[in-house]
């Protein structure tokens, strides 16, 4: 038993996720948001914060944000305003960030996740819109003497999604981030690339540990930053869980005690540890006040309904529908849903055409997905159409072609062969389905493998597989698998009873 299994405690994680919106232009000016342009080329007086420049809200960014909020089941406010968050930092040209403080455009939502134990809702406190800061490029060669500032990113629309502290494990953290990514990509809200910084995550974590006296001790909250991939977030949460548990065994420090403060820690992916950066002795005072250069925004109920109607079926609903409609396992439904709507649509089309949803799901979850991953393709560019895959599945069922040869046919179709039949012809596959012919081959294989037969008789049913393998070798995999199995068992039993009699 490991340390973590030895005692029951609760992991409490709250996630603060920032995603860049997929708008052509910035939140308060007309500059391009394209990633990877030469430093400071996508800037203007507004996003440089030059004297006299004024922000004008990008309506498209706001609409996208509303879409995201509705998909996150948030209540969208009819009236919202902008506020200034004041702090000095070189990546923030105005030394204040235009954000939202007491009247965010949306609040009180939830995100349904499935970390393998069935669907669960994680509550959301709020989703608000703000402008991104620029990027600091620290000069490694200059011995840390010089830092450069790239303001291309300054003013990019950023959605902040704040969860309630309801994420209960590192696995759920991963599921939460993957679900946000899936949802927002599907809706065209954000491309959610953690590497490029279009999705960023800070995690607040502590443990609730039951004590002998029946009370529950909470460990000091740590805010973990510098998390650059979903895997890193999960690892960091696992590490921090263990660290906090061990620390608590050592010093027994509890959240809420005098002298115990929230700490900020950076995740170091190389050493796979968190490093406490600073203690938050006192909450930073951002001196929020209403942004006087912008007017409040109103959103009508009709507009909310309109946007909601455009959302379509969201992943959580698909995950629930696929098992109900097609008899898929929750796991398979999860795999399909995770690939996005186009993938699910492909599945539904192929399943409808071939009439075997389970088999369709198997092909998609394994071979199709693998091929897509290898070619880094999206399903809509996949060379085999849904009808093609349905054709293949139908042909396999009709002929009883074994898995290995089926995959060869699949590969042939992937290379451009339009139908399963043509692919099989090309590969010279002709399925042997004649009972007498197969029985003959089986008997010969039994005769050639006395050891296996003897093992089988001793009750080692697995030994039959060796004989089956020999049959398949003999027929170049073109024997109808279930027929071989049937004949083999018949023949083995007969051989057994003959021997008994003899």
């Amino acid at each position, binding site marked *: 038993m490991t340390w973590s299994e030895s005692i029951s405690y609760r992991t409490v994680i709250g996630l603060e996720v920032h995603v860049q919106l997929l708008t052509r232009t910035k939140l308060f000016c007309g500059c391009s948001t394209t990633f990877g342009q030469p430093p400071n080329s996508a800037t203007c007086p507004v996003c440089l914060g030059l004297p*006299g420049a004024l922000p004008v809200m990008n309506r498209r960014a706001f609409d996208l944000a509303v879409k995201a909020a509705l998909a996150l089941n948030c209540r969208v406010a009819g009236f919202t305003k902008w506020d200034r968050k004041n702090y000095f930092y070189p990546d923030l040209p105005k030394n204040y960030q235009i954000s939202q403080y007491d009247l965010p455009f949306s609040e009180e939502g939830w995100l349904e996740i499935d970390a393998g134990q069935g669907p669960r809702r994680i509550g959301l406190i709020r989703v608000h819109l703000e402008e991104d800061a620029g990027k600091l490029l620290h000069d490694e060669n200059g011995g840390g003497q010089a830092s450069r500032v790239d303001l291309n990113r300054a003013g990019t629309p950023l959605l902040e999604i704040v969860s309630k502290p309801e994420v209960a494990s590192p696995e759920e953290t991963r599921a939460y981030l993957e679900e946000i990514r899936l949802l927002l990509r599907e809706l065209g809200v954000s491309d959610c690339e953690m590497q490029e910084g279009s999705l960023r995550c800070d995690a607040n974590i502590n443990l609730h540990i039951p004590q002998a006296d029946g009370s529950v001790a909470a460990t000091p909250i740590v805010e973990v930053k510098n998390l650059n991939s979903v895997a890193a977030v999960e690892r960091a949460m696992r590490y921090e869980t263990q660290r906090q548990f061990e620390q608590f065994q050592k010093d027994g420090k509890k959240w809420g005690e005098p002298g115990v403060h929230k700490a900020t820690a950076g995740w170091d992916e190389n050493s796979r540890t968190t490093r406490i950066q600073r203690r938050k002795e006192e909450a930073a005072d951002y*001196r929020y006040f209403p942004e*006087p250069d912008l007017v409040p925004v109103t959103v009508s109920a009709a507009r909310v309904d309109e946007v909601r109607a455009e959302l379509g079926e969201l992943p959580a609903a698909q995950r629930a529908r696929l098992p109900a409609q097609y008899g898929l396992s929750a796991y398979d439904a999860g795999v399909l849903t995770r690939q996005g709507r186009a993938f699910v649509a492909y599945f539904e089309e192929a399943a409808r055409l071939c009439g075997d949803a389970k088999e369709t799901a198997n092909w998609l979850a394994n071979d199709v997905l693998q091929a897509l991953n290898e070619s880094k393709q999206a399903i809509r560019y996949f060379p085999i159409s849904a009808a093609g895959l349905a054709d293949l599945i139908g042909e396999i069922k009709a002929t009883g072609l074994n898995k290995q040869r089926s995959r060869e046919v699949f590969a042939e179709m992937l290379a451009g062969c339009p139908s399963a039949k043509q692919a099989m012809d090309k590969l010279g596959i002709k399925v042997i389905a004649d009972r007498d012919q197969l029985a003959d081959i089986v008997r010969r294989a039994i005769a050639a493998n006395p050891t296996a037969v003897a093992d089988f008789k001793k009750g080692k049913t697995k030994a039959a597989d060796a004989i089956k393998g020999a049959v398949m070798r003999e027929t170049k995999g073109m024997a109808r698998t279930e027929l071989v199995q049937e004949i083999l068992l018949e023949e083995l039993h007969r051989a057994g009873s003959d021997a008994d009699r003899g």
Partner: protein
Amino acid sequence: MAMMDTSAAEIRQLFVGGQASAREITHSCLEVIRQRDGNIKAFLHVDEAGALDQARLVDEKRARGEALGQLAGVPVALKDVLCVRGQPTTCGSKILASFTPPYDAHVVARLRQADAILVGKTNMDEFAMGSSTENSAYHTTRNPWDLERTPGGSSGGSAAAVAAGEVPLAIGSDTGGSIRQPAGLCGIVGMKPSYGRVSRFGLIAYGSSLDQIGPFARNIADAALLLACVAGHDARDSTSVERAVPAYAQMSEQPLRPLTIGVPREFFGAGLDGEVEKAVRAALEVYQGLGATIRDVSLPHTRFAVAAYYLVATAEASSNLARYDGGHFGRRATMFDNLIDMYCRSRGEGFGAEVKRRIMLGTHVLSSGYRDAYYVKALKVRRLIKQDFDEVFNNCDVIIGPTSPTPAFKLGEKVGDPLAMYLSDVYTISANLAGLPGISIPCGFTGSGLPIGLQILAAPFEEQKLLQVARMFERETDWHDRRPG
């Protein structure tokens, strides 16, 4: 040609009619500036070459027979708070000593479209914070009526330039009275339009929810002409209002009848100079003589206006001025140890005492623990002041009172007493808090020959009413014809 007594409208006529070229007009204007500004010191920067270039272009335009703008050939001075592409724009501060904006303010673009000749940038209190132009980091501007006295502020340079006859028109900005007060102290016309009437794009912000750009002129018609050129919606300023701009110049000639004038008793209390009060009362009699009904009204919450203003304006200023950190533009300290030290030294060296005072005050009133008691309460007071005005305007067309409690005070007199300085805006500040348009027009002189200003306020977006009512008075009196000696 002599600029001294020529109005903007007349200059345009001379130019359009072919009696004078823009080049001649500009030369004449620059000559007057050369002669007088050594004493007045209204300008921070005179753009002689640029002005002559603009004049040449306008002359060529006329030669080609093209349509000419509303201010064709008319020299205009700009308060140094407005961004002009490629021109020094200091905002009266050392921290922007080397700053040249890469773009024109909306108002500047409009003036160019109107074929005006932009002759230079005028002095001001640093970041428009002050009432005497003594807070300029560069020099102190003098009142043309008495060189020992202030022209007022913060748009003191623009007001003095117009009063001294150096230019017929100038642009100022008004956050708490910074157009009306210097207009009053310099004996000219100065108007603060309604909040949202003129785009603030390119106006270096002080208190964003209070700042407005407006005209200085020597008569109502010219003020109306300049306002008409710069007013109107601009998509680059979200707070600029989409409302049609009336034909101010024509409308101002129409007397407003019947006319009901509200006279707030709060504007005639302690601190009001006797001679100022006498001149204002006399002005009210002129209106009575024109058939106006005078109504005694009350604006009970205006007694909190100065306090509320110094909370709201400084809070916004503390944030607006955060960008001057030595990082991306403007002045950076030469010696510093680290980032924070660079911020501290750049700002410490770059800002003057009054600006620092207001940044500290504004930072304090927004701080956690104080925000509700100061900033949030000030916003409540602001709403109450607005309500006071709304009620009065239900029964009155305009409100009339003094622009400032005293005529121009001596330079140096209030420098050591910020509170006394703040009180010189006691009558003008509430219009900014309520977003109202206001105008100051000359209504008399003290025994020692200092001008006295009459302030007229109207409901939001009723600038035309202000101009009509002001013009009625101007027609009956000759205060606006007097010139400093």
